[in-house]
């Protein structure tokens, strides 16, 4: 239910969405398909999801879990976990105080966010409730990411400004 609503809203917000099985192989295939020919992929290891789920992906030689500053500003894609998602708006919630998750989700032209289906909540306001997701939304530093960065300041609507130009969301099935 929430997966379907989330997917429709995220696509409306000009993100792309893929729902995959919860296995290292399926996740790795989905991420690599999304990043295409990127020669360097920034990666922030997860806080909630088991790191083992990312093991196959992290083994790819293009992946940098400890990028240098220079690599940080010169990579085509950044992959992080999202600890929650919002069905009504198609948003993913990224923790910006956990290690490099915030910066990896921000600097590269393509953002890939991996979120577990059971952490999709109905509305943005649910992140401000103590009884939802153990009240994580009340404790963490995070950002609701809804589509790629955009501006209308230069006249027409342009996608891809200071933040990512594209957002790809991978939802891990229940």
């Amino acid at each position: 239910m929430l997966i379907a609503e989330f997917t429709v809203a995220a696509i409306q917000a000009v993100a792309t969405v893929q729902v995959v099985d919860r296995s290292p192989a399926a996740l790795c295939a989905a991420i690599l398909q999304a990043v295409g020919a990127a020669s360097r992929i920034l990666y922030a290891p997860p806080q909630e999801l088991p790191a083992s789920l990312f093991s196959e992906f992290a083994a790819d030689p293009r992946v940098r879990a400890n990028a240098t500053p220079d690599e940080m500003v010169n990579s085509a894609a950044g992959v992080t976990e999202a600890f929650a998602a919002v069905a009504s708006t198609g948003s993913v919630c990224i923790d910006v105080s956990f290690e490099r998750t915030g910066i990896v989700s921000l600097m590269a032209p393509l953002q890939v966010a991996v979120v577990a289906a059971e952490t999709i909540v109905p509305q943005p306001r649910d992140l401000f409730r103590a009884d939802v997701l153990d009240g994580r939304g009340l404790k963490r530093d995070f950002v609701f990411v809804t589509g790629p960065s955009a501006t209308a300041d230069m006249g027409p609507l342009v996608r891809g400004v200071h933040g990512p130009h594209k957002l790809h969301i991978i939802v891990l099935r229940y």
Partner: protein
Amino acid sequence: MSVATPVNPADINPRQVANKSDKKALLDAIRMTLSVQSPAVRRNTQTFNRNRYAATALLPDYNELKDRARQIKEDAIANLPRLLEQLEASVRANGGHFYLAKTAADADQYIRDVLLRHEAKLVVKGKSITSEEIKLNHALEAAGITVAETDLAEFILQVADEQPSHIIAPALHYSRERITALFKRKFNTDLPLDTGEELTVFAREKLRQQFIAADAGISGANLIAADSGSLMLVESEGNIRMTMTLPPLHIALAGIEKVVPSRTDFGTFIELLPRSGTGQPLTSYVSILHPPLKAPSFAAPGKAAKPREFHLVLIDNGRSRMREDPILHEALYCIRCSACMNCCANFETVGGHAFGGETYSGGIGGSWEAGTGTLMNARFSELCTGCSRCVTQCPVRIDIPWLNENLRQRMNVEQPSSAAKSAFGAMTGSASEDRVAPLQKQFFANYHVMAGEAARFPAMANAVTRLPLVRGLMESVVGLDRRRKLPPFPPKTWEQLYRDEHADNRPRAAKSASADVLMFADVFTNYGSPERGMAAMRVLREVGINVELSPSSPDGRAAISQGMIATARRQASALAQLLLPHLEKGRVICVLEPSVLAMFRSDYEHLLDAGTWEKFARASFMEPLQALLSIAKEHGTDLSQIFRASKSPHGTRVFYHSHCQQRSCDAAWQTIEVLRSCGFDVVTSSVECCGMAGSFGYKREYYELSMAVGEDLFAQVRVAEQEGGPRTLVASGTSCHEQLWAGMGREVIHPVELLVSTLG
């Protein structure tokens, strides 16, 4: 009154006319914006406006959210001193620094000192309108610190050296073409910058270097939670995230009114703020942080990472004074979403460089400029016509017209008194405290006196007011623009026609007295359109409603719109005495003129004593076709059997424009439903206001603006008529009639007249 000298709009930078305490600056700014900025402002504000209507309609509990938001803000402002103490403790507990600046200069000095202590040379700034209020960039640049504005709109303004023209899209007065020209000139480049993408890439490349090299980042904050020191920041470009994430030093700057009790309160505002602003369910990025962030800061290539440091700088700068002010404290509830600007017909036409001051703009902007500066800085709030569209769109339900009417009243008092003004005021019935108001305001406020005199000798009055000499005098003495055609005074008033009807012994009671309605003889219909008034009564009688006419009496609308609140109060109290016996009997009161209906429904809360207002609030005031529809539904009456559109000499094709205040009273859709159910083919306007707005469009200094606003409406008529030919023009407000008549040059009728025309 001084006449503004014509200006060449291309010669003035908006900064030159930002301060409008001198009226000439306001008039110059209107000319400049109409000639240079209007197309971009219209396109951008109207896009926000359409998107907001669509996005808020998707919230099933929109009204409950607004009630909750209002309650949170009321409580927060009431408890502000305690919340500020709590917030300070929270920020310190998080490991941040807290500074409460009394004045703009205090805030500038504190921020400058922090930056100098860190030997910061380059600062990146996210969007912060509050920093414009305190002129932070000047203060920092004077100390040798380079400030890079990173929001693309603020970047444009920094390049152009202009003030913001809109609270969330500060450069929305710039078309793509004008940005291209600006960048080519200022950056002396031959790069092709002919699309939004090319311009964005150009600015992004420049700013990416600044983000990487920056020593510090300065952001604003949309909301701040006292319980946890959490900030909420709403954006779409990603520049605010970079500002807060990359440099080791983060300074957040905001007004003290941004504080709410708890982070749980963000849950209400996150649903309302983006939808009310850009009309998006959420903008690309909404950050929720309690800095300093635990993640390491970004070290530029070749540099070592530094530990993070966070400062929250809150500014008072007049806000505590606003909090004590019985009227202006309501402005502190503002969450700066821009809905009041985007749904304002005048703002849509000129934007914040005319309808705005040095920092703040739009309907709410006058209160902010007066509150953080001086009263006369709010002069531009004259462009608020009181149409009330914003009241329905504000997520915290601020009564913005009431704020502006009070500013106007305070500005009237600042005017020097004169013998002529007091004599004119005494003659026309201004309350004694309002007799300092300019002649023009007293003239329009006391319309009923002039109209009453004219009604005694209408033929003579019409002959006299057609004389060029008289129009010249009216223009120079009271500022009534001579280009406006004055509708002629009819030979008899509504009251006289009603009396004549009785003298004729024509049937007075309805066919079956199943309902009982008192029709209020508002002064506009009584003196200006008595036949329309009679038509309204006839329409109601046709469905079996027993209807009587009240005596005519001024309702205070004209006076309140001129800021003559004491006069309005006096008129309202007298009228209340007249209506109370009817209210106590539970009679429905029908009001033909929507601006008067709005007085009874809402404005009287401010004008009547609490006990009387309570009776008004409980009473049933209705637009005539609202009453018609509700009674027809109640009795199962088939309106199409009574009013057959096919029999109307006006034809069945109509273009209907409802009145701004009629829509704010939720009393417009009923007319459309009635006309359609009678078989009319109805195309409706979608403009917020016709631009006439009572006396506004008659005033010499606002005539051009009024006609420019009307152009949207006229264009919609032309589009509707492209297919299938002409349509009968139908409108519900007196002002809308005059404006459509002026713009289209043909007859405009009221829905009740259209219905009567079907009766043969």
